[in-house]
Every structure is written in structure tokens, then in C-alpha cells.
């Protein structure tokens, strides 16, 4: 179980660029929750994910995973609990290293790294199986450099890497936004399969309202660093895009001024 208690974060405090990106944020995730997150630009969606991942320290509040307070833990230590896929397909993999080397690095997420040889036959078999399940034909290209792969292939590999060592929480930060629609759909389908198969708890930021409604068991809407709408189960399944737009106007008192989101309906 993951819990955020009154978490706030202000960037550039005391300057003209001061921005309170998270404002007393509260969120409680149950085991197996697959939550989609929507909201306008600057609503604090990515900031929330980064705060959970430990990219920067928060100003106040608490972040707990399974009862352990991780608020002050550095990013590399939290990695033990958290798998991440970024928006930029270049960010989640080492371009200059082989596919199997990348997977081997990910296999040891949160584990002790010693002077043992990084690659062995047993793991290689595992990687081949896992790659096969992606259905991209990568299982025959274990020793190819990741830099040779397309954006969609790289994102699929990153997804595999994030879940190779089962995380307590999977963070997906608009991980299909940089892909073309057909590839994005493929990666999204893969995401759902992986989350379901491994019974993962996941947070997924998206700009596509339809995806936000159709995927996962719970949806939250953010504005000005807070959660303004939280819906799950039956109620979520009945939602329409119009409902969401209406909810946004109602809660924030402004129109949903986000071209990207309007276009993607």
C-alpha cells in the first residue's frame, strides 16, 4: 500500500518563478490499484510521480510504501520499490549497451551489485522468454545495442525492465506520448497485460481521456497540485469524456484549457 500525506513542493521558492507544484496532496493507493491520472498542464501530475520516485525532496508531508516512511530516502534507494517508465523513450535505456546488458542492469534493481559477472546463461534464457512475450521479435537480438531500436521498441523494453524485478509501485509518466498512435496503442496494450499478469500497483499519467477512462480501476484528476476528483470501480466505468470535462470545470472553476487533451478525444 502506498500513501501520500499532505505532500507539498514549491519550486524556486522566493523568486518570481515561485511555483507551488504540489499543494497538500493526499493519496492512498490500495494493493493492485491501477490508477490513471489526468489534468491540465502544470497540474502537478509529473511532479507527483517524481516526488514519489524521489527525484527531488519534498518540502513537507510523508510518503509511505507498505508502512515504511521513504520521504527522506534518496532516489537510488527507493528504486528498490519502484519501477519507472519515462515519457522520453531515450531516457529509460542505455543506448550504448546491449539489450541483454540493459535487462541485466534492470534485473538487479534494488539489489546488491557485487563483483559477480553481469551476464549468465540462466538469466539470458529468462530475458529471451520475456522479450518473446513482447512480440516484437527482439528475442533474437539480445546482443544488439539498444540505440538501434525504434522509440516504440525502446519503450517496450523499458516497460519490461521496470517490471523484471516486481516493483511495489509502477510509475508511468505519459510513457506513450512520444510514440505514433499505432505504436502507442501497442505499448499501452502491453502495459495493461504486464500490470494485470503481475498484479502490479500502478500510477499512469496520460493526456488521453479515453485511455484514462478505459484503462485501470481508478481515475484521479489533478489541478493546482491537488487531487480534485477521484473515482473508481463501477462509477469510473460509466464515465464519459464529457463527464470529465464537466467535472474539471466544476472543480477548478475554469475551462479545460489544454489543446492536447481536446485534440486527443
Amino acid at each position, binding site marked *: 500500500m502506498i500513501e501520500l500525506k499532505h505532500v507539498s513542493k514549491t519550486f524556486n521558492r522566493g523568486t518570481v518563478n515561485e511555483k507551488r507544484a504540489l499543494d497538500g496532496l493526499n493519496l492512498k493507493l490500495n494493493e493492485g490499484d491501477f490508477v490513471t491520472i489526468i489534468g491540465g498542464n502544470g497540474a502537478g501530475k509529473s511532479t507527483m510521480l517524481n516526488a514519489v520516485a524521489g527525484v527531488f525532496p519534498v518540502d513537507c508531508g510523508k510518503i509511505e510504501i507498505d508502512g515504511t516512511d521513504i520521504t527522506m530516502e534518496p532516489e537510488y534507494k527507493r*528504486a528498490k520499490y519502484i519501477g519507472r517508465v519515462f515519457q522520453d523513450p531515450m*531516457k529509460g535505456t542505455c543506448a550504448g549497451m546491449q539489450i541483454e546488458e540493459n535487462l541485466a542492469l534492470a534485473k538487479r534493481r534494488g539489489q546488491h551489485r557485487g563483483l559477480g559477472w553481469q551476464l549468465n546463461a540462466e538469466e539470458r534464457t529468462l530475458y529471451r522468454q520475456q522479450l518473446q512475450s513482447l512480440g516484437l521479435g527482439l528475442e533474437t537480438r539480445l546482443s544488439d545495442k539498444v540505440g538501434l531500436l525504434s522509440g516504440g521498441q525502446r519503450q517496450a523494453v523499458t516497460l519490461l525492465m521496470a517490471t523484471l524485478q516486481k516493483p511495489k509501485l509502477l510509475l508511468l509518466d505519459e510513457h506513450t506520448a512520444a510514440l505514433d498512435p499505432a505504436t502507442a496503442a501497442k505499448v499501452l496494450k502491453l502495459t495493461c497485460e504486464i500490470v494485470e499478469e503481475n498484479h502490479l500497483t500502478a500510477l499512469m499519467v496520460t493526456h488521453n481521456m479515453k485511455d484514462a477512462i478505459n484503462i485501470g480501476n481508478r481515475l484521479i484528476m489533478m489541478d493546482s497540485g491537488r487531487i480534485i476528483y477521484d473515482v473508481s470501480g463501477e462509477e469510473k466505468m460509466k464515465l464519459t469524456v464529457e463527464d470529465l470535462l464537466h467535472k474539471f470545470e466544476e472543480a477548478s472553476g475554469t475551462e479545460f484549457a489544454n489543446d492536447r487533451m481536446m485534440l486527443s478525444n
Partner: protein
Amino acid sequence: MNIAGLLGSLQGGIAQGVLWGIMVLGVYITYKLLDIPDLTTDGSFTLGGCVATVAILAGVDPILATIMGLAAGFLAGAVTGILHTVFEIPAILAGILTQIGLWSINLRIMDGKANNPLLKADTTISFYTDLLGITQSQASLLVGIILVVIVIAILYWFFGTEIGSALRATGDNEDMIRALGVNTGHTKLLALALSNALIGLSGAMVAQMQKYADINMGRGAIVIGLAAIVIGEVLMGRAKNFGVKLLSAVVGAIIYYLIRAFVLQLGMDPNDMQLLSALLVAAALAIPVAMRNYRQKKSYVAGDLYADEHLQREEKGGTDR
């Protein structure tokens, strides 16, 4: 020109190149794997030479004295690493600070003298000249080759381990490997310390070959290291095997010292060698950029480059969009 003299100096050049090659392997770790041009090099190379010669003259076993030079380099690299990772000083500045500080420390180690001659003291190299009855430069070459083989084997193994792979990943994609649970501060610190350990070892060996340590022996070492890496890449850049890539750095150093021996034999002032090295590295870095920009400009066409295809499409009645 004296052919015998030339051959002799070329042989000396190869020996020098092999021993300096150990330094180039150190530079390879920071420059190629971490993308940090580490300026500690000039100081830590001299440090290795100073520590080893002072230890040898104090009666320490030459092998132990050489290891002390290596350890001193390791510590110097660790200082740069701490300045860079703990206090977030930019890597280049952190290296300069350590290098400048080492200047004073090196003079202290040599008791204020700018030059510390080994005279007739036993060294790891004189051991072989006595044992096998070979010349100083032949013995240097022999010891150098043994050391290079050992160092490359260790590096090849190390960078295949879990820690070594995490270190390579740090140079490739720092955010990614941190998200996978690696403290990138530690990996960078380790890389800088390892790199300078090899540089210290190289300094200790070069001092024993030339039979003295000098406060200026490391001046420009980083540029020599970069030049050797560049030469090695030109010659063996297509190699994919990591071991061959490491070897190419040493081969680069050998070629560099052969060129140096050759032009000095032709009568060039040794003091001009620094300029030649700097020009070589600057050219190697500048030429690809200049070529790319030139090609881009030259290939630009104001008119429609694909006019034929576009005309065909129009004739078929296709729209332009």
C-alpha cells in the same frame, strides 16, 4: 641521419609508449566511459612518480614502492571524486583543484626538490636488466608489456561485473541507472579513483624507466592521453570487443611516442611537443564537426531536390498534402 640512433630511439619510444599506455587506460575510463576529461591526471601521474622514487630511495622494495604510487593515485582520484560527487563541483574544476593542490604536495614529497634522481637504486626495471642482461629500454618494454596485459585483463573482467556494468551505465544514462537503484555518486567516485590509480602506476613506472621523478613529468599528461585515445580510435575504431578497445588506447600511446621519438630525432625542439599534442587533439575533435557543417551547407539546394518525383505525383493527380 644516424640509422642506429634512430632505431635506438624508436625502441625507446615503444617502451615509453607502453608504460604511458597504462596512463592512457586510466584516461580511457574517465574520458570514454564517463565522458569526464579528468584534469587530475597531470598531478596524479607526477604523484605516482614522486611517491615511488622517494619510497625506493628510502629502501622500500621497488614492487611495493610501485604499488604505493598506484595507491597515491587512487587517493588523488578519490579527492577529485568527492569534490565532484559530494560537493557537486563541476568535474573539470574539481580535477583542476586537485591537480593544483598536488603540485605542492608533490614538492613536499620530494622534500622541496624539483627533481628526484634514482641514481643506482634498484628498481622493478633494473631487476630485469641485471637478470637478463638487457638494456634499460628493453627491460622497460618487457615490464610494460607484462603490466599492460595484466591491467587490460583486470579491466576487461571488472567492466563485465555488476559494479563495472553499473559504472558503464552511469556514463551512458545517469538518470536511468539511478532509477534502477545505483548510487551514481559512488560509481563516479570509483571510476575517478580507479582511473587515477592506473595513472599513478604509470607515473611510478615511467619514473623508474627514466630513473628520476620530476615535478613537471606529468605536465600535459591528459592531452597525451586524449591524443593516444584519438590515434587508437583512428586505427582500431571499428573494434567492438571491449578488450580490443582498451588495447587500442595502448596502441595509440605507442604510436604517439614513436612519432615523438621520430620528430625529435629529426631535430624538433622537445618543448614544441606539447603544442603538437594539443593541435593533434584539437584537430581530431574539430575536424568531424567542421566536416559535418560543411557537408550540410554544401548539400543544400534552393530548388526542389525531388522535382521529378513531385511532378510525377502531380500528373497522377495526387494532392500535395
